[in-house]
Structures are given as structure tokens and as C-alpha cells.
């Protein structure tokens, strides 16, 4: 009799899906960053009298995009796995210096050298994080100082110049091409190889991912190395834009990347909700904001104030409270 009672209860239970689908709200939340981008472009177009969408201003608008987008791709992968990387700016600086040195012999070799240098720095981060089990936050703050110090030391007696031919490469089409190639390759790797699956699974639940055959330690080490390599590659574009490197090259890049990704709707703790579009929408939004604000508010302090307020509003709207049981 007792068995019959429970059977009836469970039969009813099984006829109805356990929870009403939250499809609509997730779908909406995924699109919010995109709407945010449109809204910002619209608002600032109006405020600047249409200046920002004029073609001649486009390359100005997008000048910062290339380095930011390429580095953000790497950090995106790191954050998907649940980590953070505060050393990006320092990696950019140091890799740029490496490029400058080697560019005097051969530019392509220089690019390779810079990428390898970035990869080495990323591997350093990964090693300490994985092998010694130190939180990524701490490791990358330490290495931020560490690499930045090297950078400053090398430029003690003056900026490091690149070879002259490099400046000739500063063409928009070239930069767009390079960025596009990186994005396409990374998108492919993220979406069509098991790398993407592994990253999202490990970020969403590392223990469960481990029990499913993923190898979190190896994956995390590789992802930090990749992120370093990508930023190393981005340093190539950085140098062709500025020509020579000073001690403060790349400072605050990590914070810009963080803001950009968050604006793009990237969940802070990564996991399965991370979408590649976060990178693209986020960086575009950031760059538009960055370039439009001076046109509307001439005082740089006001620009920053508005930037901060918009940032807080966007984050408050896009944050997924369900997946943050404990807010820290």
C-alpha cells in the first residue's frame, strides 16, 4: 500500500518536467550585451551628431581594438576555466620589447619570438598556479610586478625601438586581417575541438570534469600558456602602432580586458555560460565607449566617471545571480 502511494506521487511527478524551462530569460540575458552595444552606439551617435559612425572616424574608433581583442581572447579562455590574469599588461610590454629586438634581424622571426616569449610568461603563470596550487589572482599579481619590473629595467636608459620597416606595416587592413585570423582560429579551436568543451566543463565544475576524463591541471597550464602566446602575438600589432617601447607599455591592459569582457556579458567565474561573442561585443563596446566619451565630454575625468557608471549599470543588469550562490 505504501508502495502504491509513492508510485502515484512519482507518476505525477515524472509527467511534468522537473522545472519550467528558463529558456526565455537565458536567451534574453545572452542578448543583453548586444543590445547594450547597440544602445551605446546609438546614444553616442546622437550625442556626437553622428560623428562616431562616419567612415573616416572608424579607423580611429577601432585603433585600440586589435591588441585588446587578441589579448582578450586569451584571457577569455583563462576566465572560462575560472581563473584570472592580471599580468597581461606586463606580458604585452615584455613581449613587445622582445619583438623590437628581433625585428632588427627579421620581422617574421620577431613575431615568432614575441609569441614564444609571451607563451613562456604564460607558462610561468600556469606553472605556479597548477603545480603549487596558488590562486591565479595572486600568481598573476606577482608576475605582473615581476614582468613589469623587467620591462622597466630594460628600458631604464631609454625606450627600445623597433626596426624602421615595422612602422610601414601600420595599415588598417593588415591589422584587421591579423585580428580576424586570430579570432577565427581561436573560435574554431573553442567551438570545434574538445578544448572548448574542456574549458567550459572545468570552469563549471572542476571535480566533475575531472571525473569525466578531463585533465584540469594540464588544461589550465596550457590555457595560461596560450593566453600568454596570444598576448605575445598582439605585441606585434602594439609595436607597429607605436614604434618603440617604453617602460610603461601595456599598463592597465589587464583591467581594460576585464572591463571589456564584463561589458560583453562574460560571467566572472567562467563556466558553461561563457560565449565567444563576449569577446567581440565586449571589446567593441569598450572601444566605442573609450573613443566616444572624449567627443562628448571633453574633460577626461568626466569621461571616466561616465565610463564607471555605465560599467556598473551593465554589470548589474547582466550578472547571472542564479549561478552565484555565494557572492564574494
Amino acid at each position, binding site marked *: 500500500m505504501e508502495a502504491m502511494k509513492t508510485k502515484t506521487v512519482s507518476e505525477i511527478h515524472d509527467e511534468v518536467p522537473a522545472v519550467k524551462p528558463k529558456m526565455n530569460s537565458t536567451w534574453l540575458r545572452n542578448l543583453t550585451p548586444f543590445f547594450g552595444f547597440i544602445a551605446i552606439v546609438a546614444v553616442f551617435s546622437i550625442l556626437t551628431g553622428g560623428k562616431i559612425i562616419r567612415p573616416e572616424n572608424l579607423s580611429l574608433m577601432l585603433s585600440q581594438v586589435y591588441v585588446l581583442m587578441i589579448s582578450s581572447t586569451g584571457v577569455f579562455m583563462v576566465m572560462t576555466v575560472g581563473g584570472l590574469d592580471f599580468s597581461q599588461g606586463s606580458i604585452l610590454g615584455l613581449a613587445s620589447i622582445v619583438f623590437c629586438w628581433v625585428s632588427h634581424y627579421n620581422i617574421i622571426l620577431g613575431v615568432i619570438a614575441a609569441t614564444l616569449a609571451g607563451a613562456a610568461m604564460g607558462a610561468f603563470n600556469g606553472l605556479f598556479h597548477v603545480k603549487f*596550487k596558488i590562486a591565479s589572482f595572486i600568481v598573476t599579481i606577482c*608576475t605582473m610586478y615581476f614582468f613589469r619590473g623587467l620591462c622597466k629595467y630594460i628600458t631604464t636608459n631609454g625606450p627600445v625601438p623597433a626596426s624602421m620597416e615595422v612602422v610601414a606595416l601600420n595599415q588598417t587592413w593588415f591589422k584587421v586581417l591579423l585580428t580576424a585570423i586570430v579570432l577565427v582560429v581561436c573560435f574554431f579551436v573553442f567551438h570545434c575541438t574538445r578544448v572548448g568543451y574542456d574549458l567550459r566543463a572545468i570552469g563549471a565544475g572542476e571535480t566533475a570534469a575531472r571525473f569525466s576524463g578531463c585533465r584540469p591541471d594540464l588544461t589550465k597550464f596550457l590555457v595560461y600558456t596560450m593566453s600568454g602566446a596570444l598576448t605575445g602575438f598582439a605585441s606585434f600589432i602594439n609595436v607597429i602602432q607605436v614604434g618603440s617601447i617604453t617602460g610603461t607599455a601595456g599598463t592597465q591592459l589587464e*583591467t581594460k580586458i576585464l572591463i571589456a569582457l564584463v561589458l560583453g556579458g562574460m560571467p566572472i567565474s567562467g563556466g558553461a555560460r561563457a560565449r565567444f561573442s563576449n569577446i567581440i561585443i565586449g571589446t567593441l563596446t569598450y572601444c566605442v565607449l573609450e573613443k566616444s566619451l572624449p567627443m562628448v565630454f571633453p574633460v577626461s575625468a568626466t569621461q571616466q566617471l561616465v565610463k564607471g*557608471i555605465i560599467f556598473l549599470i551593465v554589470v548589474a543588469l547582466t550578472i547571472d545571480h542564479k549561478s552565484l550562490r555565494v*557572492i564574494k
Partner: protein
Amino acid sequence: MTYIGHSGGGPAMLFPATRAGSEKYLQVHFIRSGGDMTSERITKIKASKYFGIILLVALTLLFWGIFKILSPNNFGTPKLLIGYFQTSIQYAVGGCGLYFIVVMGLFDFSVGANIVLSSLVGVLLSRQFGYWGLVVGCLTCGTLIGVFNGFLYSKLRIPSMIVTVGLMLILESIANYVVTLDTSGFPGKLTSNDILAFSHAPWNYIVSGTAFFLAFFLLRFTRIGTYCKAIGSNEFVAKNMGINVEKYKFLGFVILHFFVGIMALLTVSYGRGMLAVTGMSSMDRNFKPLMGTFFGVAFSKYGYPVTAIVIGEFIITLIFNGLVALNVPTTINDFVTGAVLLIIVTLTNRGRKGSVVK
């Protein structure tokens, strides 16, 4: 219970060595200890309680020794040591404040922006009200920022790391406005010698000493210390014990920024003024105090975080000055900071097998 998201318990998020969590898998079923193990246990514990301070002193002596041998004349003389100490205490004050937050697993990127803003408010008020203006300006501004941050954090329900980035941007901008209000002709500067008492003995010692004592007092003699640590250790259990977690997180921010206000007072006096910055440059100021906090957390299990913070900052300043004495260009400073920190964190960290480190 499944934690999803950047969580995982207090300093455990940053320092797995202090992670609590479920220690069930450490239960040893088969080892039965008898009564005579207790005396062995006592000696072990006694050893470990003082071990922390022995280690800190040893580190200090070690670094002093290294640089003294390498550069006997420009380094480490009693007079210079005093100078090093005076420099380090401003960061130690900030480090103490940060400790309250970090111990709960939170973080605040706007510490640097606070230093800038509070300094400028202090300078502004000092034009009219002299020392009173300076002190009241720095401390009140700091505290108000703490209230503002804490309020936004609890209302917006965004992780502290993210919300404080936005706040940093906003505070930096406000600092720039404040400078424009200073019509003295030397905006942001403390020009007269009559206002520089805090830049040297005895006042800098008095101020920082009071701050250290206050931090020690709060941690040891009020509930704030206990509850912040409990929240950091296991927020759910703490809540179940009747602790008002929201209230103490808010208080944590207020305390943090109050201490940062004190640090601003010292910083602006030492520096004879303050520059308003934009472009997130104030972030650079976040990390020196943070390093002291790292020391504090790493040694917290010995029960005297404030001491660890003070000695830790001193060690770092010692190292910097040692390098300067060796004629190493100051540009190498950051390199050394990063390296030393990394080494210390690696040595004091003990990650458990199977634990998830983010």
C-alpha cells in the same frame, strides 16, 4: 552544497592553505592515539605558535644580512633602518585595513583611488582649517568611501572584485574634481612646513601606531574580528550561528576604507601633496598594502596578523632599499617585489590534493 561561481570561502579562495571546507577525508579511522601522545602534542603546538614570529624575524635578519654584506656602507645602518621603517608603516596601515576584507574572501580595487581622493580632500580642507582639516578630511573621506562601497556592494549584488573596479573609475574622477576646487595656486600640494608634522617622527609613529593598535584591538577584542574570520571560513555555517553576514561585510568595507583614510594622511604628508590621476593609474597604489595583507593572511594561523603585516611590509621595504644601495636601478623594484611575493606565497601555501584552486 554546491558553490558555483567565484566563491569557495574566505581567504580560502585566495589561500588554499587556510581553507577549511570538509575535512572528512582526513579522518583517520585506523590510527588510534593513546594518552601519552598528548605531551608530544603540546610541544608541537607550542613550537608552532611561536614558529610564525621566529620565521618572520628570521626572514628580516636574512635579508638585512644579505644586503649588509653586499653593501656595508649604504645599507642597514641604524639610521637608515629607521628610515625604512618609517616608509613601510604607511603601507602597513593600508594592509591592516585590507585584511578585514581579504579575510572574508572579498577584494577592493579602489583602495588606490581612495588614497588619492582622501588625500586631496584632506589637502583642500587643510587650506582653511589647518591640521584639523587635513586629518578630518582624510579620515572622513575615507570612511564615507567605505560606506559608499559597502552600500553599492550589498545593493547591486555584484562580486566585490568587479564592483570595485567600477568604483575605482568613479572615485578617480571625483578626485579630479576635488583638485579643481583647490584654488590655492598649488593644487594638491602641502607647501607650508606647518602642515607636515605627519611626515616625520613622532607624529607618523603616533598615527600608524594608533592604527595598528586599533586593528589589533578590533580583531582581538571585538566581535568584528571573530565574525569576519568566521564568515571567511564558512559563510553558511556562520549564518546558521546567527551571524548577520550582510552587516559584517558592510562593516568590513567601512573599516577598510577608514584605514585607507589614515594611510592617505601619511601618504600625503610624506609626499608633500598628491596628484590626481585618471586612466586607472591609482591601481598601482593597491598593491603595496596588499602585499602586507598577504603576509597577514599567510601567518594568520599563528594568531597575530597585524604583527605579520607590519614586519612583512618592513621586509619588503628592506629589500627595495637594499637593491638601491647596490646601485641597482630603481626600475628593478617591481621585479623584486613580484619575485619575493611569489616566493613567500609559494612557501607558505599548502594546497590539498584534490582541492579546487581558481
